[in-house]
């Protein structure tokens, strides 16, 4: 069931108790849990936090830690699966779900006792009515008994009536089932993301008058991740940042007094128009142009011609080559100050679309100044920097450290990692485009990252593969220049585990599609069913899944047939 009043029906229930927090491996989830943790710490709510990568992880984390626990908070996980079925919990356990994955599993929606979905049901999109989906009428047979009690009726009459009733019921039942199928199909067909969990958690803290600038900053980062990874429509992001901006200014003014004086030591969050160039304040202009989606796509930087175009742009801006290859921070001050305007002015000429958008910046003391996108990239890079002595959980905790103002070193390391990450995405996209690896299957595009490719193993990480897929789709659409390609979605695939012979697939919606809703979740499972191939939809984001590598060709065929 939905819980609308988070303060009363969630926070005050949990306060003073012990709870288990399970958090999905994504930036928004980390931000949301950070806000909860901060509240819990102030109220001395003893908690255990375990990061989970998928459904199986969630199950084992629950089993490991469930003893003595009555309250479980699930952040960005658990909402779109049948939780009770999977976890088989004791009846005394209550689950609070703060999940931005949609659609919710209907079993969760209509479980009145154990499942509490944190959010306002009126904001949800058409959820089928209870009666449409569930049939409580399990007493079919008993009904008939009732009839038999009627002694006065003749046996024949009775039989006739029973027969009639049964037929009627069957017809009704069939109608109901058809309607149910349709409703379910309609409801479950597309997967998408709803409002950032971090923002919801923040708004709860605000309702309790417990919010502060740190928390709103975390909410900003959560919502920025949704924007960067195209999880939500851009118009939604803009609205959300307006909302967050008002919170920022309220909190800034609430501190009141002499703002100028506070600026030196206090945290300051500002909202301003900024360039959508990844990490440019921490990088060189050239690298940043190359590795950012808007510029890389518009200038087609993966080709040699593109390289020339970039030189041309830089020359026209009056930015000497040697300066553009320097760290941005060591560029001449005047160039630095004019940089934004220069790019903006020339963006039309070079057809660089939407290069400017709003972004938040956090400043703390003199040396701590980062914008929200910087931090999202750093966190993504850390989150997926697993290795032999870096288990995923450790990466998760380190990514969460990026949110702490006290851990600048970790954030700095993350930013360095992010540069490398973006570099690999770019290089992979470049070589895939050069080698014409993008295949048009008629109604969708697909690309397979072969094991021969440099650093192919990095794309066994879902976010990395997702970013690559988005990059390639844009770049491909731009370079073919046909209207048709802009309407096609793309599926990217990379080896997940060589030993197990499995691969990771991710589907991204077409460039022209304004609403980032994806039918791939359903389509993947359908295609797998049709071809009898094994599919592991373990991720909470259903547009990602794992397949047996050997099944991949026939899977793509089936997918193609399905999308006719």
């Amino acid at each position, binding site marked *: 069931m939905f819980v609308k009043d988070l303060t009363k029906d969630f926070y005050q229930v949990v306060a003073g108790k*012990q709870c288990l927090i399970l958090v999905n491996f994504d930036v928004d989830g980390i931000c949301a849990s950070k806000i909860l*943790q*901060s509240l*819990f*710490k102030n109220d*001395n*709510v*003893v*908690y*255990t*936090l*375990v990061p989970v990568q998928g459904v199986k992880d969630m199950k084992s984390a629950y089993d*490991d*830690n469930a*003893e*003595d626990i009555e309250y479980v908070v699930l952040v960005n996980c658990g909402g779109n699966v049948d939780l009770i079925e999977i976890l088989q919990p004791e009846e005394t356990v209550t689950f609070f779900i703060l999940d931005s994955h949609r659609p919710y599993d209907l079993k969760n929606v209509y479980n009145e006792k154990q499942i509490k979905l944190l959010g306002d049901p009126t904001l949800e999109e058409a959820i089928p009515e209870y009666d449409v989906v569930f049939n409580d009428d399990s007493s079919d047979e008993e009904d008939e008994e009732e009839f038999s009690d009627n002694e006065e009726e003749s046996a024949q009459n009775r039989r006739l009536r029973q027969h009639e009733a049964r037929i009627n019921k069957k017809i009704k039942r069939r109608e109901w089932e058809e309607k149910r199928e349709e409703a379910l199909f309609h409801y479950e067909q597309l997967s998408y993301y709803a409002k950032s969990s971090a923002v919801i958690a923040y708004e709860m803290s605000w309702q309790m008058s417990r919010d502060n600038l740190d928390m709103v900053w975390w909410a900003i980062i959560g919502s920025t991740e949704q924007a960067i990874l195209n999880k939500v429509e851009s118009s939604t992001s803009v609205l959300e940042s307006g909302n967050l901006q008002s919170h920022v200014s309220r909190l800034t003014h609430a501190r009141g007094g002499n703002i100028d004086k506070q600026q030196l030591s206090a945290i300051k969050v500002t909202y301003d128009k900024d360039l959508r160039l990844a990490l440019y304040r921490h990088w060189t202009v050239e690298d940043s142009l190359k590795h950012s989606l808007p510029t890389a796509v518009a200038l087609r930087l993966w080709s040699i011609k593109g390289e020339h175009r970039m030189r041309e742009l830089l020359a026209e801006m009056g930015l000497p080559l040697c300066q553009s290859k320097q760290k941005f921070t060591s560029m001449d001050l005047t160039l630095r100050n004019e940089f934004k305007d220069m790019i903006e002015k020339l963006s039309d000429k070079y057809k660089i679309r939407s290069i400017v958008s709003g972004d938040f910046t956090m400043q703390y003391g003199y040396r701590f100044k980062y914008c929200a996108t910087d931090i999202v990239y750093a966190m993504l890079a850390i989150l997926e920097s697993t290795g032999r002595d870096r*288990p995923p*959980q*450790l990466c998760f*905790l380190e990514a*969460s450290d990026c949110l*702490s103002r*006290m851990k600048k070193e970790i954030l700095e390391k993350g930013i360095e990692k992010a540069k490398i990450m973006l570099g690999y995405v770019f290089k992979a996209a470049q070589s895939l485009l050069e080698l014409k690896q993008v295949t048009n299957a008629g109604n969708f595009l697909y690309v397979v990252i072969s094991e021969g490719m440099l650093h192919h193993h990095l794309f066994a990480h879902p976010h990395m593969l997702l970013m690559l897929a988005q990059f390639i789709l844009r770049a491909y659409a731009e370079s073919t220049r046909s209207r048709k390609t802009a309407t096609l979605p793309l599926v990217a695939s990379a080896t997940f585990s060589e030993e197990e012979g499995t691969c990771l697939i991710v589907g991204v919606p077409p460039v022209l599609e304004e609403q980032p809703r994806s039918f791939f979740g359903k389509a993947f499972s359908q295609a797998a069913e049709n071809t009898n191939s094994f599919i592991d939809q373990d991720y909470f984001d259903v547009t990602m899944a794992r397949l047996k590598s050997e099944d991949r060709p026939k899977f793509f065929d089936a997918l193609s047939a399905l999308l006719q």
Partner: protein
Amino acid sequence: MFCRDAVKLVAELNQTEDIKPFNEAVFRQVLEEVQSLFEENSKDVNTITEDNTAPKNTLLVRHYAMNRNKRCLLTYLFHRMRRLRQARWELGSIIPPEISKNLIKPEAQWFHNYNKSLATYMRTIGEDGLNILNDIQPPKSLYIEVRCIQDYGRLEFDGQSVMLKKNTYHLLPRSECESLIRQGYLEHVSS
């Protein structure tokens, strides 16, 4: 030159703060050197006559060497003992196997006795005794955030319990985790 081996023991102490395996070989060599110095002195002491006092000088040199050897041996023992005592204060009455495997029997015996006398002392404080090795840091908050860096298992407190598995993150009562942090199971996280 005399006492070369003895200084090796002391130099070993200087290298690390750890309790390394007891260096029995060198320790025994030093004891043997002391023995032979002593025997030579007993032999030479008879050669001193009124006319020939020169052997006195030799005796003196050997005497100093014996004392120097003794000093090195005892210093070796003394510092190992102090380190062990430090471990007792920081890690509690059960020493981790990484340390205990490096001790010789009399050292283990010393540890046992020290534990006993410490416990005897602590029992005398107040009516029921007070473990004075518990509250090492001044308290700032009752609950602290910790990251589990080594599997520990179930931790019970106040009728609640929590599973401490590597790479999980918790908010727990400070008093429950302080010793686990010092033993390296948990890491105190400041945010």
